[in-house]
């Protein structure tokens, strides 16, 4: 019963409802990759539980020929593989949409819906007849529904075959099983179902110069290219894969071909207190060092982030944000560490923050973070999030300039020290309000005492008010001086705009789509995405140029809005909030509804 038989090519969304730990991730990843290789813009969002086996998990695939990659909330097709969530999954199919289920058993009559089409594929029966082992029967059901989707959506089978061969090149029996399951699902759909569905795929060339990568891998790659040699960490979701990837890259690229030794040292610390301590120790000695963590780790690291701030030691912290407070929901996304990172640690502290919006920026900002940390001799925090960090994104190919050399900031050489009458750590300052530092072991004249206790501009211990204030006042000036050095905001102004939108990080894709959607309804908005803190004059200008501004972010307490009101000249009343903080990635619908509900009636 097809209520609308309107053909839509390369523009639909599907959701795969699975049980975690049953091998569905592999099938879902293959589907997404196959669509990507067909040259079609696609995004995948893994909505998974904090669990190893047995709980519901969903994977959403959005295909969009114009390149909108934010999460879609309208599902044209749901693959219902989890009996426990059937009822909910059936409800989520848009009217006129489809639901694919395992017809080995009859579908519960109470789940019936007249306005959608049920596609029954006897997946368990098929796999039970093909495979003997219980394990294979479970795993291959996923590949069998993938086969059915290939037929239903017109996925290029040749591409998929090729991918399987790449993936299982060294595991022939597995390759064979995958092929059989895939073919079984495909043949059944071809013979028994109406293929393809009205929404389906057609090859494009929109991804030819692109890659499919998650943000954590891209961050790790940035750290590798920036020349980081020391990394310290404590395992935590969703940041663990940063260090897993870094280790993998180091094993591939950092083994000295002559000596066989490792040109890196990765230390798994006992906790985040120690992880940041290691980074600071290594930074003190002149290594580019970083740690990766999430909100709970930031809480623990705050103590020593203050030490690095006050003693002026470079450090890079990657915070892949998850939902808080406390343990919160470890496998769900949020942007709720903005304030705790901006002012991490006791006393007067302020830090440099970077807000990447995609794996592409994760790569470039990781390099930038080391540059800023060494230039300003201070901790730099990269605020990624679970959506960026752990989901695969289609991004332009990463580029590298071989002329790049790390700028280590103001570090005195042995020759410079030799020529100096005497070295003092915290003076004289340059235009950035940064004083030259020395590295231990370089020269006898460079020795000094690093301390987190009160010190004067010569580096000596002090409890004298004026001497103490002189140093912390310079630190405040130094932080302000970093404003033009952090990545500039991305501003998209439109003629006849009636208000502004400000957002950051992982909200970007949804906000850009929302700006377009609003425009189609005659509601014209300017959009600024901030990419770093402290905020510079371009941020001030945007704030000044708009009487009404919506701040879109993924936390309950409007943390970006708070930061803007505290750290710019904007009046609080101008800023309104659009907030989504339930833990799933932002959708343009959240933004559109959030804005239009606050507009006066008649506007737009």
């Amino acid at each position, binding site marked *: 019963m097809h209520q609308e038989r309107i053909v839509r090519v390369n523009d639909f969304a599907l959701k795969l409802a699975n049980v975690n730990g049953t091998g569905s991730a592999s099938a879902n990843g293959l589907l997404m990759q196959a669509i*990507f*290789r067909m040259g079609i813009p696609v995004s995948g969002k893994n909505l998974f539980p904090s669990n190893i086996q047995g709980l519901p998990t969903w994977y959403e695939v959005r295909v969009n020929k114009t390149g909108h990659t934010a999460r879609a909330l309208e599902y044209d097709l749901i693959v219902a593989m989890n009996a426990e969530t059937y009822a909910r999954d059936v409800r989520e199919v848009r009217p006129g949409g489809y639901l694919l289920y395992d017809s080995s058993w009859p579908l519960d009559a109470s789940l019936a819906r007249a306005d959608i089409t049920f596609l029954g594929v006897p997946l368990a029966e098929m796999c039970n007849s093909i495979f003997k082992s219980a394990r294979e029967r479970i795993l291959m059901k996923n590949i069998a529904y993938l086969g059915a989707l290939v037929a239903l959506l017109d996925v290029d089978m040749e591409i998929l075959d090729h991918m399987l061969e790449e993936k299982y090149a060294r595991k022939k029996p597995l390759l064979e099983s995958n092929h059989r399951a895939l073919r079984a699902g495909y043949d059944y759909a071809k013979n028994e179902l109406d293929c393809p569905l009205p929404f389906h795929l057609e090859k494009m060339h929109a991804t030819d110069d692109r*890659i*499919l990568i998650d943000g954590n*891998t891209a961050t790790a*790659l940035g750290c*590798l*290219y920036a020349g980081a*040699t*020391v990394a*310290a960490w404590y395992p935590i979701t969703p940041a663990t894969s940063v260090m897993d990837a870094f280790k993998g890259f180091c094993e591939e*690229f950092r083994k*000295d071909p002559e*000596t066989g*030794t*490792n040109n*890196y*040292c*990765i*230390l798994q610390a*006992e*906790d985040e*207190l*120690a*992880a*940041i*301590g*290691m*980074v*600071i*120790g*290594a*930074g*003190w*000695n002149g*290594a580019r*060092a970083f740690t990766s963590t999430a909100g709970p780790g930031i809480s623990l690291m705050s*103590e*020593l982030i203050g*030490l690095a701030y006050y003693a002026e030691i470079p450090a890079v912290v990657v915070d892949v944000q998850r939902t808080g407070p406390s343990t919160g929901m470890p496998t769900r996304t949020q942007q709720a560490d903005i304030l705790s990172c901006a002012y991490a640690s006791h006393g007067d502290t302020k830090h440099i923050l970077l807000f990447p919006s995609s794996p592409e920026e994760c790569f470039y900002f990781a390099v930038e973070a080391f540059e800023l940390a060494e230039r300003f001799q201070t901790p730099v925090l990269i605020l990624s999030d679970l959506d960026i960090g752990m989901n695969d994104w289609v991004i332009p*190919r*990463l*580029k590298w300039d*071989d002329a*790049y*050399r790390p700028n280590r900031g103001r570090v005195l050489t042995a020759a410079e020290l030799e020529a100096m009458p005497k070295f003092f750590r915290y003076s004289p300052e340059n235009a950035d309000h940064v004083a030259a530092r020395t*590295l*231990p*072991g*370089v*020269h*006898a004249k*460079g*020795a*000094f*005492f*690093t*301390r*987190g*206790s009160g010190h004067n501009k010569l580096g000596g211990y002090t409890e004298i008010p004026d001497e103490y204030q002189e140093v912390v006042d310079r630190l405040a000036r130094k932080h302000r001086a970093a404003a033009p050095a952090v990545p500039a905001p991305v501003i998209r102004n439109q003629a006849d705009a009636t208000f502004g939108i400000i957002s950051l990080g992982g909200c970007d894709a949804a906000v850009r789509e929302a700006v377009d959607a609003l425009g189609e309804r005659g509601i014209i908005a300017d959009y600024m995405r901030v990419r770093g803190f402290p905020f510079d004059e371009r941020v001030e200008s945007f704030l000044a140029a708009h009487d009404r501004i919506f701040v879109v972010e993924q936390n309950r307490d409007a943390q970006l809005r708070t930061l803007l009101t505290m750290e710019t000249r904007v009046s609080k009343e101008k800023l309104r909030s659009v907030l989504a903080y339930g833990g799933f990635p932002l959708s343009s619908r959240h933004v559109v509804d959030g804005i239009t509900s606050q507009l006066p009636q008649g506007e737009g």
Partner: protein
Amino acid sequence: MPSIKKPAVLHPHLRPNAIGLTVRDYEGSMSTLCAGCGHDSITAAIVRAFYELSTPPHMIAKLSGIGCSSKTPTYFVGGAHGFNSAHGRMPSIASGANAANKELTYIGVSGDGDSLSIGLGQLAHAIRRNLNMLYVIENNGVYGLTKGQFSASADVGSKSKRGDANQYSPIDPVMLGLSLGATFIARSFSGDKAQLVPLLKAGIAHRGFALIDVISPCVTFNDHEGSTKSYLYTRKHLMQVVQSDFVPVAQEITAEYDEGTTTSVTLHDGSVVRFTKVAADYDPRDARKVTAYLQEHQGQGEVPTGLLYLDEDRPDMHAINNTPEAALTGVPYGKLCPGSAALSRLQEEYR
């Protein structure tokens, strides 16, 4: 300006060492600790040890946490790079510093509060990593800077200055080190410079984590009757288990020794530690025997001292991580960055 002219002759203690520096060159600024503090004696022993080893001051990294003991790196080797960090966090900072530059000589000075309470976790894991450093615990059983609270090393029944008796079981850094696999464990007394200086030198030469627990009475808050970390108590109960002597690599070994009572162990840098067994059947390389011996004697209220345990075979953090011979900070950027061509190739895997 002094009122009398200084004599031109060099004081015998100001004899230059192998790199032409005198003991004065290994001193730091004036101590601000209480007069008679055991920590100052340890500082003097550290000065002596580095002077005798002829370590270039700027190649020394001296680190500490927070507390009276952690103030002391200011008082020795003024020409060394110092890092007075945060309470209980020195082991992690030393780990990262050492990871970046293994060419420096690392000494960490800590106290019983810094190491056995707030920093117990960090100490334990630095031991597990077998971080190549000398780690001195200046152990007085009390929090001095905050005026006399018991620390985690205070013995049960030990009395505070106010007269309260400690009822919580103590953490013994020596037994802790043994259970965690420390590769060099010694105990000494701040008042015993003759024993302490060779121990410090051996600890510096040892490649791995050298833990020295130095009983260091607090004259202000813990040197009264009823304290088990007072000068009087320590002197009464001290017993030397092994007498150790340290022979640096540069020094020719000429002394003959009796095979029956003396054992010598060559450290990784070629220097030698000679043990003279004061206690019969004591072998500092047999962890089980060491544990049994210490439990027996400490149970009787004795404080066994000397180089109590030594294992030269376990790999240190750098060996475990297969790092280069020289410091990671010296690896040229060209060797660290795979370059644009590699990035292009790599990205084929992300298609």
